[in-house]
């Protein structure tokens, strides 16, 4: 944008930007990846086996947190943790959720690239609490 001229007539007002943001949100929510993620998430939340395995894994991770920081976890505990992880991640509903989440993230990253390229800032980084780095 050499010799860029700040022309007030070209400025998009906030209501206009909001409107495009709403239309974008609708299009994103209608995308196959978003719908698949919503379905997978609902299934994840409603699956008793998943929730039980998740709680067991979280509980073990919490109980070992301090020992992990000190690198003082016994082999038996490590094996127990690995077993719980395998049980949890081996459930089809969990795999489906992870796959759907990854697809949605990939989609949103592509959109993020479009936004970032247009505005000259990394969109995702700029939106972090505390703003951009540096």
């Amino acid at each position, binding site marked *: 944008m050499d010799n860029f001229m700040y022309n007030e007539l070209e400025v998009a007002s906030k209501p206009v930007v909001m409107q495009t943001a709403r239309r974008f949100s609708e*299009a994103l929510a209608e995308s196959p990846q978003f719908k698949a993620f919503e379905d997978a998430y609902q299934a994840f939340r409603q699956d008793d086996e998943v929730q039980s395995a998740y709680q067991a894994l979280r509980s073990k991770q919490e109980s070992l947190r301090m020992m992990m920081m000190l690198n003082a976890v016994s082999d038996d505990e490590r094996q127990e943790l690995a077993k719980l992880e395998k049980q949890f991640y081996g459930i089809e509903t969990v795999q489906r959720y992870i796959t759907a989440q990854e697809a*949605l993230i990939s989609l949103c990253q592509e959109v993020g690239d479009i936004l970032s*390229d247009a505005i000259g800032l990394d969109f*995702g980084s700029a939106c972090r609490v505390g703003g951009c780095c540096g």
Partner: protein
Amino acid sequence: MKYKTDSLTPELRVASFDLAESLALSEAILGYTKAHQILMKDQQALQLIDEVNELQRKVYAGGSSSEDLEDDITRLRELQGLISANTAIQQQAIARETAAAFLREMNQEISQLIGVDFASLAIRPGAGC
């Protein structure tokens, strides 16, 4: 095109580019663009920034003698003072924060509508401003 959009439906592609265009034409982003262009043309400011970055890398990397380290830290403080007094750098920083605040507001609007924080999904690992 520097990025791929294969995964986007036609509707989402259009909506994404429309959003990108309106963001780019918003007052906050236009202000940042202008301030950034001014900074990029200010050789003195750019040299200051380069020297600070280089010195910070050297200090954090370690390995210098304590005397050299002390000299480097003194110089770093001087440079940070010069940066604080440099209009182009300060104006760009202010404009960047204004732009970031605006983008956060837009992200909040989007995130409320879709039920998920959009920006956290859009960010690439290791991305910076």
